[in-house]
């Protein structure tokens, strides 16, 4: 005679899935021992009571784990506090009234520090990423020469390109282009976008002379 079916069903439903079989097995084994020692009726009653007790423990354990999980989630999502309170503003205002000279000096010092920071930042920016000496150069979002063999940006070619453009005497316009393959799905195949020639795109023309035919005007440089 096995343990009451409802008891097995209850503990199986309430136990975590990986442990459902062994929890039900424990109940069945305990019931078998009671059958031998105490008889059928007593075993049925005691096993039923134990099933309720185990079920309550399983529910408590499930609730505890949920609480722990939520507490961990809350701790993880806790917003960053800036540490500024109303008392800080009150203290600042009182110090302003009490020591106006110190406030003025402090304000000037902070303004000077900010100006020094901005100047240094601009200097570094101009050294590392200078704008091109062209009209509307700020409209150029990016100009990059990529050395495919070396796998890096080709700074020397950019310099050569600028020198070459300035020394042109017979070429009316100098351009460069490259094909960029986009992974956009369009009807009829893959979309191809040609990145345009440098001088024409920038609205800059060469110095003088007729438009050159051949490789220079055809692009590809």
């Amino acid at each position: 005679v096995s343990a009451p079916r409802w008891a097995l069903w209850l503990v199986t439903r309430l136990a975590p899935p990986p442990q459902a079989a062994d929890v039900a097995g424990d109940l069945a084994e305990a019931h078998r021992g009671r059958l031998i020692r105490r008889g059928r009726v007593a075993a049925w009653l005691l096993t039923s009571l134990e099933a309720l007790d185990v079920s309550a423990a399983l529910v408590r354990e499930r609730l505890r784990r949920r609480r722990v999980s939520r507490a961990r989630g809350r701790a993880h999502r806790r917003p960053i506090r800036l540490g500024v309170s109303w008392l800080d503003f009150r203290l600042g205002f009182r110090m302003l009234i009490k020591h106006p000279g110190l406030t003025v000096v402090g304000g000037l010092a902070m303004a000077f520090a900010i100006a020094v920071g901005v100047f240094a930042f601009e200097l570094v920016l101009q050294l590392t990423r200078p704008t091109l000496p062209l009209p509307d150069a700020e409209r150029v979002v990016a100009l990059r020469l990529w050395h495919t063999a070396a796998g890096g940006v080709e700074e020397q070619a950019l310099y050569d390109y600028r020198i070459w453009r300035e020394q042109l005497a017979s070429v009316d316009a100098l351009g460069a282009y490259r094909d960029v393959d986009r992974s956009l799905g369009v009807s009829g195949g893959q979309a191809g976008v040609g990145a345009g020639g440098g001088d024409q795109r920038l609205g800059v023309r060469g110095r003088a002379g007729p438009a050159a035919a051949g490789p220079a005007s055809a692009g590809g440089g």
Partner: protein
Amino acid sequence: VVSGDYSHNVTKDARALAEFELIVMLAALRLGPEQAYTVTIADEIRRRTGRSVRRANVYTTLQRLEEKGLVSSELGEPRPERGGRPPRLFTVAPSGLAAVRATTAAIRAMTGDLSHLLGETS
């Protein structure tokens, strides 16, 4: 019966166990990794201490000991007396043994010179 390899070093910072945790751990050590599961642990405690042990408490205690890494568990072979279901066998981990040693050492240190009050011989 004490089986399994429990010859590990005891760390000084081993966590102390609560009283029922200690009793459950000692029962698991006595039964060994092949026989320590909820039913047998409850029976062992009942037989040795004469306490009426609720299996639900043993189950909860073993779950928490496993969460703390003091015991590990795995399913055994299905058994006919369990309706063909396998038992979950518990093995005391090295950190669990260290915790048992630390707790029993603390109890011994506190009861050492109180034998005239406690009526113990050792």
